[in-house]
Structure formats: C-alpha cells, structure tokens
C-alpha cells in the first residue's frame, strides 16, 4: 500500500488496511493522535476502523507534553 502521509509518499505492507493498523505500524497507536483522512478529520471514537485505500492522503498529528 502507498499513502501520502504528512506530505510524504510512504510505502507500507499490504496488511495495513485501516487507520488503526497504520498507527500500530508506526508504533503510535498508544499515543493521542489526530488523523485527517483525505481532507476529513476523523472522530477519535471511530478513527481506528477507518478503511484505507491505495493513494490515500493522511495527516497524522500526535500530542506531546514537553515544554
């Protein structure tokens, strides 16, 4: 699968079919992440179930605490 994530083209294994598995793939599934999928902001309750297709555009923003 090939996505555009935060502006960059990224190749991921074909097993990555949902936002949830994508977050797991990048090891950020335990963080607070806001996901925009093809221009739509995803609700946190349902974001992990969102199905992904080849060529999808994603913006991933994770919240950090330091300051």
């Amino acid at each position, binding site marked *: 699968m090939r996505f555009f994530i935060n502006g960059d083209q990224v190749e991921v294994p074909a097993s990555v079919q949902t936002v949830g598995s994508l977050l797991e793939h990048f090891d950020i599934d335990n963080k607070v992440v*806001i996901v925009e999928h093809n221009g739509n*902001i995803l609700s946190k309750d349902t974001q992990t179930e969102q199905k992904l297709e080849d060529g999808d555009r994603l913006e*991933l923003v994770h*919240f950090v*605490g330091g300051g």
Partner: protein
Amino acid sequence: MSERYSRQELFDPIGKEGQMKIQQKHVLIVGAGALGTGSAEALVRAGVQKITIVDRDYVEWSNLQRQQLYHEQDARNRLPKAVAAKRRLTEVNSEVEIDARVMDVGVEEIEELSRDIDLIMDATDNFDIRMMINDMSQKANIPWIYGACVGSYGISYTIIPGETPCLQCILETVPIGGLTCDTAGIISPAVQMVVSYQVSEAMKILVEDFQSLRKKLVSFDLWQNQHTFIQIDKIKKPNCLSCGHERTYPNLSFTNQTKTAVLCGRDTVQIRPAEPVERDLDHLTQALSIDGEIDVQNPYLLSVDINQHRLVIFKDGRVLIHGTKDISEAKSLYYRYLG
C-alpha cells in the same frame, strides 16, 4: 522611548492602534521553562502592560541549552525560575510590570492567577495542568494557546472559548505516560518554532485581530522536514463537559488534584503539603545539617543532600525529592525530615 515600538507599529496589522492595545494587556504565562522564557521575552519586548509568570522549579545546568532567560549564575545559585526570569525580563523592558510567582499551580492557584487576564500562554510540561488551564479558560472566557515540543517535534493550537474546540474536546481524557516525558531530549529550534507560533497568535489576540488567527492545529518536525496544518473545528463537541451546553468543568474539581507528582524525565518526586505552609529555611538548614550536607540556601529554597537523595525545600512548602521515581520512598523521606 517612543522609538521603542516603532518597528512593531510600522507593521501594518499592528500599527499605533494595535500597539496601544498591546500595552493595555495582561498575559499569564504558566511555566518558565523553554517555552515560557521564549514567550515571556517576546511579549515583554513587544510591550504588554503586565506579565504574570509562574513556575514551581529552579534553574539547573541542563536548562541553559534552551531556556533563554537564564545564565550560569542562576544555575549555580539554584534560583527559582520565576525569580531569575523576572530579573532578566526587567532588564529587557523596565516598562512592563512583571509578577513572578514561585508556586505549583493547582485549582485554587489557577482561579486566583486568572483574574483580570486577557490571555493565557501554555508553557507547561504536562497535561494535568493543561486540562486545568483549559477549563479555567472556558469558565473565565479567556483565550489560551497550547504549545508543546519534544525532540525536533512541536505542536500548537489556539483555543478561543465559544469558537474553537477546547482541549477536552480534542483529547477527551488526560493523556498519560510517555507523552509528557522529555526522555527524547529537545533541540532549541523546536522550542523557538513553537514559541514563534504561540507568540504570533498571542499578538493577534492582543491587538484583537481575531480574523487573522491560524484556526488550524499546527505540528512540525524540524529534523524530518515535516510541517502539517489541520482544520479540527469539527472535533468540537456540543456535549463537552468543559465547553459544551451543560458544562461542569471537570478539570477544576478538587478531587482531580494530586498532591504528589513524579516529575517526568527528572528522577524526581514533588510533594506538596495539603495545607499551605511557609517554611523557616534557616531553622531547617540547622536541623538538616546533622544528617545531610547543605548544598545551597537562598531566600527561596534550601537544597540539601542526604545519602543518595537531594531534597530541595521551597519556602512555599513544596519539596522536590531527587534521586527517586518512587512516591512511597519519597514520602518516607519527606516525613522523616519534614514531619
């Protein structure tokens, strides 16, 4: 002195009128670490009427790489950050009133600090306090600007009560664990970038140019060359307990307050007495020099080494116990030496 703000007044969106507005505003900066010193210096140079800056910690050598108001002598003297910040800020612009507070901000403190405030700048290092700021912002109708950074990564969002989603809408719960730890280190350009985003938004708010606000969540990674803006208006929840129709401000309830806190990435536990106390530092220096070795005493704190631990005792009652992450071990030391 009329020259002082001339370049800012020449900038059209501010102008002389905007400058007059800036000079009537009172900004609360919560935290005087990397983000707090950056924001404070910029806003003091910009000529706000008054800054209240609050921090619970003292200056250490590891701060000097990025916390722009501090000098080596501040670290040597373990000066409280708020005190050291005020000293430097007054040198930068003596026309600005600086209210510096050495304290740990809890619910009572945030209520008191937020009186007559036009804007709250987030320069904290954890989400417990941010959630408190969030609810206070909604309750008192004060805008606040979230900012955070770790490594080469940074993030910021401007929260306007009644307009944007609030942090409770965005996060739903207080994030725990790895998020607050600075174990990944931090580089100063990441700090400066967040400060730039926060202060630009602050200036727009102070000159009341709300239309020009960014309105998007911004995040970046300066090492991986990424920059992201996303529109998150749709996240605003009508039933949010902090900003919705039937709000209860859950983060301002006293039961959510902790009296002990493990300071992230610092191998340190803070213990805060349930009732406010003022410690007699001279008396403590005498009493503790029997078992320990006095490291530093200044008008604000006493630092003493006892075996492999360092106890830093603040005049406002708080104690930092360095050399442990174990709350029960920290408590036993606290009770042994401070009753």
